[in-house]
């Protein structure tokens, strides 16, 4: 039995969701979907999932997951869970696209009677939603803390003033009880670090959340250290300096710097890097409240902290994507403005060069001018980004593309004495715009030649069609060199427009354009590199371009 038949056989026997499960999922606020078979055909979606994707149940069910979320990073995870039968979670890293929300997934297999996976349950959470929840909880907690003080104060006032009166006493006791219940709820929360100190800053209470966040047990810190001891010392010093300047009072770099504003009754929420027991660090948002007795004297401080890592990452991603968007807009505008005068200049030069009366002596100068303007034209075309010249996609032979592009680089190959290895194991054509595939190959090979040193090796490979992510069969092309490689810190930025390590000779557009072209053809691109070892670029391109008809069918 071949694997395809086997898969169908397994898929046919996926039972319907039991009604209790269905009831629970239908009422769940978390988006859940079930996909069956190797092609991940959606069998069930709950209302939250419909809401998340903005599609109705009828539009989703019966389609493959890759049709619903094309290009999504969850698809390889989905394949793995289906193949291995082991549950996995996946959090999308920041997106290169302009997208403010990103998702995380929990996936677990649906096992058949033979204990083999027949399908996968997928739960999606929007990371941005968690951020929002965290912010809301933080605000709620702050309100609660304020309210708690009010309640305590109210109870104490009532208790003192109306001690003789039974009804009043009862009220006061009730208020105190309510305050105590709130206090317990807050201190038992594992999501917030709540640290209470005495007036000198020595930690008196260190809740579960603080233990989890900071890695210390309560016993290790209580009555021993102050919150300043688990904060970044440089930041504490900086904060003391800033406060001294702001308030005109010398403030010691230590615990005082963390609570001074709160001690003066000023509401104080700030960012501070905390240091865990193991020495690792994380950004925290800290809110400070002074605890006072009945005579308004400060008896201690309450510091409530939340881990700000996720928000920081999201902010960075947002800033990055905004930067990219503005660069793109700028590039498009400038290019447009340059193109017309550039075209006229190129035309005029052509007219002069082809004038039969032109003296031979100026011809070489003209050729230089034309070549240089040709370079400008090349850059504006790249900047304009994969401008799609009409010409329908045709059958393209990647081996022929690679070989003919390599021919162009012939002189550079010989100069550098580069050994070229070819292993083309596939004759399968892809459907693509020929010129754009040449640009892809040319951009990647140009990078390889820049990276290769004298006598280096270049290896070009083609592999036959494989089913990637279920339905789509892809041809794989790899171009590997044993050149200089790319430093780890540059790797994550190489697909950004205008990012270059080649200073004056690079436009910083090659890989960006290449990846956009590959994306446009429904393919995928991956680049792996190690400094001093070399670089491997892998590109998957679909055999057939998916047509409009298939998607609506």
């Amino acid at each position, binding site marked *: 039995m071949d694997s395809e038949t086997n898969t169908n056989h397994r898929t046919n026997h996926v039972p319907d969701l039991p009604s209790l499960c269905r009831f629970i999922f239908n009422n769940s606020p978390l988006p859940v979907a079930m996909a069956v078979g190797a092609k991940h055909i959606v069998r069930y979606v709950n209302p939250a999932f419909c809401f998340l994707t903005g599609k109705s149940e009828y539009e989703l069910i019966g389609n493959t997951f890759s049709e619903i979320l094309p290009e999504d990073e969850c698809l390889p995870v989905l394949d793995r869970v289906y193949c291995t039968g082991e549950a996995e979670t996946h959090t999308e890293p920041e997106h290169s696209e302009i997208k403010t929300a990103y998702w995380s997934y929990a996936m677990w297999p649906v096992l058949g009677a033979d204990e083999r996976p027949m399908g996968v349950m997928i739960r999606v959470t929007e990371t941005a939603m968690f951020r929002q929840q965290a912010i809301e909880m933080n605000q709620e907690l702050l309100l609660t803390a304020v309210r708690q003080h009010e309640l305590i104060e109210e109870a104490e006032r009532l208790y003192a003033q109306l001690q003789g009166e039974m009804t009043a006493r009862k009220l006061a006791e009730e208020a105190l009880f309510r305050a105590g219940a709130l206090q317990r709820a807050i201190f038992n929360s594992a999501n917030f670090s709540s640290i209470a100190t005495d007036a000198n800053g020595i930690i008196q209470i260190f809740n579960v959340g603080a233990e989890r966040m900071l890695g210390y047990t309560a016993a290790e810190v209580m009555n021993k250290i102050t919150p300043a001891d688990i904060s970044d010392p440089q930041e504490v010093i900086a904060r003391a300096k800033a406060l001294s300047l702001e308030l005109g009072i010398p403030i010691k770099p230590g615990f005082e710097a963390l609570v001074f504003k709160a001690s003066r009754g000023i509401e104080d929420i700030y960012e501070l890097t905390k240091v865990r027991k193991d020495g690792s660090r994380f950004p925290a948002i800290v809110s400070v409240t002074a605890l006072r007795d009945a005579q308004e004297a400060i008896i201690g401080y309450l510091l409530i902290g939340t881990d700000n890592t996720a928000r920081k990452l999201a902010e960075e991603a947002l800033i990055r994507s905004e930067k990219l968007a503005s660069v793109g807009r700028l590039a498009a505008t400038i290019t*447009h403005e340059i193109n*017309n005068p550039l075209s006229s200049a190129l035309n005029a030069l052509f007219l002069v060069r082809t004038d039969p009366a032109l003296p031979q002596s100026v011809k070489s100068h003209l050729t230089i001018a034309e070549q240089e303007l040709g370079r400008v034209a090349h850059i504006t075309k790249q900047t304009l980004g994969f401008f799609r010249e009409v010409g329908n996609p045709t059958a393209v032979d990647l081996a022929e593309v690679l070989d003919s592009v390599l021919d162009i680089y012939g002189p550079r190959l010989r100069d550098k004495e580069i050994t070229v290895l070819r292993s083309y194991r596939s004759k399968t054509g892809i459907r693509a715009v020929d010129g754009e595939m040449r640009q892809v190959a040319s951009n990647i090979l140009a990078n390889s030649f820049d990276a290769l040193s004298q006598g280096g090796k270049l290896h070009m490979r083609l592999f036959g069609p494989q089913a990637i992510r279920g339905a789509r069969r892809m041809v794989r092309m790899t171009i590997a060199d044993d050149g200089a490689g790319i430093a780890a810190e540059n790797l994550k930025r190489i697909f950004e427009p205008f990012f270059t390590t080649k200073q004056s000779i690079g436009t910083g557009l090659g890989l960006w354009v290449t990846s956009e072209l590959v994306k446009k053809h429904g393919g995928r691109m991956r680049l792996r590199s190690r400094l001093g070892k070399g670089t491997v670029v892998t590109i998957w391109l679909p055999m057939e371009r998916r047509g409009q008809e298939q998607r609506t069918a």
Partner: protein
Amino acid sequence: MILVVDDEHALADTLALILERAGYKSTAAYSASEALMEVEKQRPDLIISDVMMPVMNGVDFAVKVSELRLGIKVLLISGHAGTQDMVEAAGSDGLSLDLLAKPVLPEDLLARVADILDSNYSV
């Protein structure tokens, strides 16, 4: 006869001159409406038109030309990334248009012009 349409006078003029030098008879027009008058008068075999022009853009102009049913071929040239979508929209209405990205090198343009004039397709 080839009619060149571009609101950039220098571009339209130089293109027309290049075509003349290559042996084609050619005229320049600086707007779609002016070009439509030339179409009536001269019945060109091919129109090379910019896309982003004031008043009437190149795609709408091509639609107008196709409605005349004179068997004229149209090649659009654009320096703006957004025009691709306009051309595709026209394509979905049954009008398939050739499009080149600015800046077009004169040699490339002449090669494309020869191809188009050899083909049977017209708007």
